[in-house]
């Protein structure tokens, strides 16, 4: 079936661009899933018109929990709500001939396509970067995969846990007497890769605006996550030291284990005893000791301890660390995380509470900064609270302009009013299963 449409018609799509937003004039086609959805979400927050393309019946990511009031329903996934806000949504089966043609028509007028299919999937459908760039040489196509588009493992199957494993960061996490463990909200890998995709897409965008040339941005989750290793690369490079997980401890290049997570009266706090050449950190340690002294629980040797020479990382012994850490651990056990946090803020101590997500949701600092945003969900008959702007822009403030789309919510708006497809043809496309 043909639906006649000229290039001019496609380009004359009718959405009013939000020119008061940093990316107002641009359109993004979103073919991502899972945590990768955050990439187009970032572009949407920055003002781009993001169209999430779902397969008919709904995107697989709608099955990801948790769910609104525990109702397992593709229209009530909180994962979907969180990562598809600021997007419009259409259904389209890009595996059908009609669907492909519709997709190419959309791509002709789009600035970005972001996708997270397995390597080669879109190319096999005739919708890879080569095909898209022939239709629209300005297009920036960003592909997110576990290993990138090329290389001996590019076609390996991956998921969030295995990506975390391939990047070297899983090995360094968890308790030493157990298997390495990840972060329990396991979408972290694809969230990192998705956010990296937003940055890469916008570098390509700048180049496109200077030269008119689009390009293919090839995001690898493994490469993105390898940044999580921070200085463990240098520890290996300089000393051939392989960092092993140490639970609540932090192990230096000399193999000395220092505690960074202490139990307190009602939970845990993040704290490390610092000394040596770092002036500001020595001051923080002294401030903690001063508080302990005021409370009458600092042993005399601790009050006069030489933090500069006696606790320099490059010369520390495990014996010194264990002796020095003990009075701190004891002090924390008698105090709540709120008490410890309050005094740390007041005294310039480098200590913070190990918050639960409930603590985060109730955090007074985030409330004082008006971080949370209320977003109406008419279909639920209430407003839900969302994480607010990831960056505060003075001239073009970011906000949630629309909640995540329902399945096919913008089919009519986009296919009929913007692409100019007649209602009769739309009915036929629907019967054919393309939308």
């Amino acid at each position, binding site marked *: 079936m043909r639906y006649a449409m000229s290039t001019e018609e496609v380009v004359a799509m009718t959405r009013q661009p939000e020119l008061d937003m940093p990316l107002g004039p641009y359109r993004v086609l979103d073919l991502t899933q899972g945590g990768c959805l955050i990439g187009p979400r970032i572009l949407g927050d920055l003002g781009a018109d993001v169209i999430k393309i779902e397969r008919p019946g709904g995107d697989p990511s709608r099955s990801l929990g948790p769910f609104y009031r525990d109702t397992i329903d593709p229209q009530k996934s909180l994962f979907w709500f969180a990562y598809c806000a600021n997007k419009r949504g259409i259904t389209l089966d890009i595996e059908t001939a009609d669907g492909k043609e519709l997709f190419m028509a959309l791509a002709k007028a789009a600035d970005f396509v972001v996708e997270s299919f397995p390597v080669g999937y879109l190319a096999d459908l005739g919708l890879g970067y080569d095909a898209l760039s022939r239709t629209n040489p300005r297009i920036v196509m960003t592909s997110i995969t576990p290993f990138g588009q090329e290389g001996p493992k590019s076609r390996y199957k991956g998921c969030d846990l295995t990506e975390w494993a391939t990047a070297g960061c899983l090995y360094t996490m968890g308790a030493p007497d157990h298997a390495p463990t990840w972060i*329990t909200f396991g979408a972290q890998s694809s969230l990192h890769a998705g956010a990296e995709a937003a940055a890469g897409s916008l570098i390509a965008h700048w180049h496109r605006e200077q030269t008119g040339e689009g390009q293919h941005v090839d995001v690898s989750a493994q490469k993105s996550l390898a940044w999580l290793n921070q200085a463990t690369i240098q520890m290996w490079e300089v000393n051939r030291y392989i960092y092993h997980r140490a639970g609540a401890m932090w192990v230096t290049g000399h193999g000395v284990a220092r505690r960074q997570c202490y139990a307190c009266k009602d939970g845990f706090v993040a704290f490390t005893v610092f000394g040596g050449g770092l*002036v500001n950190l020595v001051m923080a340690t002294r401030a903690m000791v001063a508080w302990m002294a005021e409370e009458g629980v600092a042993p005399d040797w601790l009050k006069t301890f030489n933090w500069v020479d006696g606790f320099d990382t490059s010369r520390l012994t495990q014996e010194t660390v264990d002796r020095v850490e003990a009075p701190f651990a004891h002090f924390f056990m008698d105090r709540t995380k709120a008490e410890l946090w309050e005094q740390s803020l007041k005294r310039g101590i480098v200590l*913070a509470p190990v918050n639960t997500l409930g603590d985060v949701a109730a955090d007074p600092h985030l409330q004082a900064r008006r*971080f949370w945003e209320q977003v109406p969900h008419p279909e639920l008959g209430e407003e839900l609270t969302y994480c607010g702007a990831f960056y505060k822009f003075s001239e073009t403030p970011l906000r949630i302009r629309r909640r995540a789309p329902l399945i096919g919510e913008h089919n009519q708006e986009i296919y009929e009013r913007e692409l100019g497809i007649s209602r009769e043809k739309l009915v036929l496309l629907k019967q054919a299963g393309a939308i």
Partner: protein
Amino acid sequence: MEQKQALKGVKVANFAWVGVGPLHVRYLALHGATVVRVESHARPDTLRLMMPYRGGPGINNSPWFAEINPNAYGISINMGKPSGLEIAWRLIEWADIMIESFIPGTMKKWSLDYENVRKKKPDIIYVSTCQMGQTGPYAKFAGFGYQAGGISGFTYISGMPDTTPGPTQIAYTDVIAPRFGAAALLAALDYRRRTGKGQYLEQGQFETSCHFLAPHIMDYLISKRVLERNGNRNPSAAPHGVYPCRGSDRWCALAVFNDEEWRSLACVMGRSELADAPSFATVLARKKNEDELDALIAGWTLDRTAEQLEAMLQAAGIASAVVADTEDLVSDPQLRSQGYFKKLKHSVVGEHLYRTMGFTMSRTPPELERPGPALGEHNEYVFKELLHMTDDEIADALAEGGVTTEADLPQISASL
């Protein structure tokens, strides 16, 4: 053919230090932007004083500092001196973007806060990033990433249930914040290109990081459920875990998302009778009997190497991977084939490894050209070629202490 670079011509004055701010700039520096990193001997970057050092302790001996700041020109000035402050202003006049990551209020001490800067340079894109943001009751809290991981909720959900949380070894939110930050400042740059307007961008890294936990924060707000740490379990997959392999502290991660993959796994294990066993045949059954399932898998993996398991399972269409340690990572054939690590020769550290980016690009790939700067390494180049200072001006700034030298290192650093 000369390599094209996407951001050639974009000029960045980088007043930021430690991790997050410089990592924002790294995205631009690897794509051709001209970046000047502003430092002072009087208050060296914390990362310069952190182990490991190569060639002994010293202000220029940290390969980690260097890896974070490649392609940048380094200058050393003291903005507490009039001539040092004057250089900062000339740099701001030169720049399209400036970024700082100090404790809120620090830039204002030098009258280099946004309100003041915009008066002289109305179209500047001015970026402030810090752990908590510029305002609010905790604004001045200056913690490390470890503290940020605790505050933002990641530490609590890391590790096995009923044990002390195993915080990420790394400063986890330090790796989240720059990805959003790079997107934010590139978007602001495009807005300026279209409208001529600069603006102030402000990041609380705590807030940015909340987006990586958003569905579960919403779940708490709606259903009052607190997410608890749960090892490697995944609510919609089983088995889903990390299993011991032959060798010392060797592990393989694997995940089975549906019954078809389970049948493949049973075959690979040589236990095809398990494929249809009532206690494991369906996802629901496997979730119910997950402890038993994990023990079964671990019994099978223990006799095999992680590399064998990865190959066997991938061949059967099951997501699986060696749990790579640092050495596995730097010798990983996939990363090597993509040129992910590159060696650059640093004047003090010597040749050492640099990671590129999480992505490459078909026309304008990221490029590592120069190692991170030694402290003040490019003073002359920046002062003369970029800021067009005269020899007399430079000499006066040196004499006044507006340009810092090794003599300005705090006593403590000299004894490193």
